[in-house]
């Protein structure tokens, strides 16, 4: 098995706020991420695909195809958007790195038809990121 990774970058704004918590609790839990008008990041997304290279093309999947999937599923949805208000898949969730990575996995997984999705890694900053994998521990990885 070979792993292949493509990286893209997008910029978006967000705010951490749970309407079920009081203003004080929101402030205590989320700190400055709760500031009322939000803030933004340059996100870096690394998408890793696993598979065997095709004997004819030598490719696990055509990088151009992966680039198009990332453009339509991630860039068009999230780039230069406010993640709280403009991304339907994140509605009702706090747009943390963990939740965004999970949503990106759910968006990409059905679109990958050659090879299969191995890992989604989303950097919110160079020192903070989330990884999403198939949970092998409960047998979900054995398909």
């Amino acid at each position, binding site marked *: 098995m070979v792993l292949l990774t493509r990286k893209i970058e997008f910029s978006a704004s967000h705010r951490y706020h749970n309407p079920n918590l009081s203003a004080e609790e929101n402030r205590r839990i989320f700190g400055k991420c709760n500031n009322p008008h939000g803030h933004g990041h340059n996100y870096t997304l690394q998408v890793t695909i696993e598979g065997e290279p095709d004997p004819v093309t030598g490719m696990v999947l055509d990088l151009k195809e992966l680039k198009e999937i990332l453009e339509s599923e991630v860039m068009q949805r999230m780039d230069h958007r406010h993640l709280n208000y403009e991304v339907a898949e994140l509605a009702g969730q*706090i747009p*943390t790195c963990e939740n965004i990575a999970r949503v990106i996995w759910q968006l990409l997984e059905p679109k990958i038809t050659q090879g299969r999705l191995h890992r989604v890694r989303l950097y919110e900053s160079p020192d903070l*990121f989330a*990884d999403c*994998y198939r*949970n092998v*521990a409960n047998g979900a990885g054995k398909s």
Partner: protein
Amino acid sequence: MNSPLKVELGRRYHFSASHRLHSPQLSEEENCRVFGKCNNPYGHGHNYVVEVSMSGDIDPATGMIANLADLDSFVERHVLEEFDHKSLNEDAPAFRAKVPTTENLCIEIFQRLKSFHKAKLERIRVEETGNNSFEYAGDSLEGNQP
């Protein structure tokens, strides 16, 4: 964890420290041969990067596996205060009897952070320089559950 997906939180921390690779069990010539310039008598230093990976369920109320402020203060107390701007050989009791290679540092940091109880420590990755990095995920028998 019954979710079909596993999510991990990764956080990078930075500290600077000096070390000297020298084993009292080896002769002077052997130390020199094995460790090369890392055996120079007065030591040298690095800007270390520690990458901590934690797993767990995402709390629906916060969207988080673990609150970053909790993780940051735990790492500050158990790792950064211990090693930042110190000599690993002289100041860290863990390296009185162990060579402070980054392999050993990686294991030491893992041991120090595995008691963080708000998430499960998956692995520690330490970059000694931009070109060398080391990872430790615990021994399978260690039972590093939160």
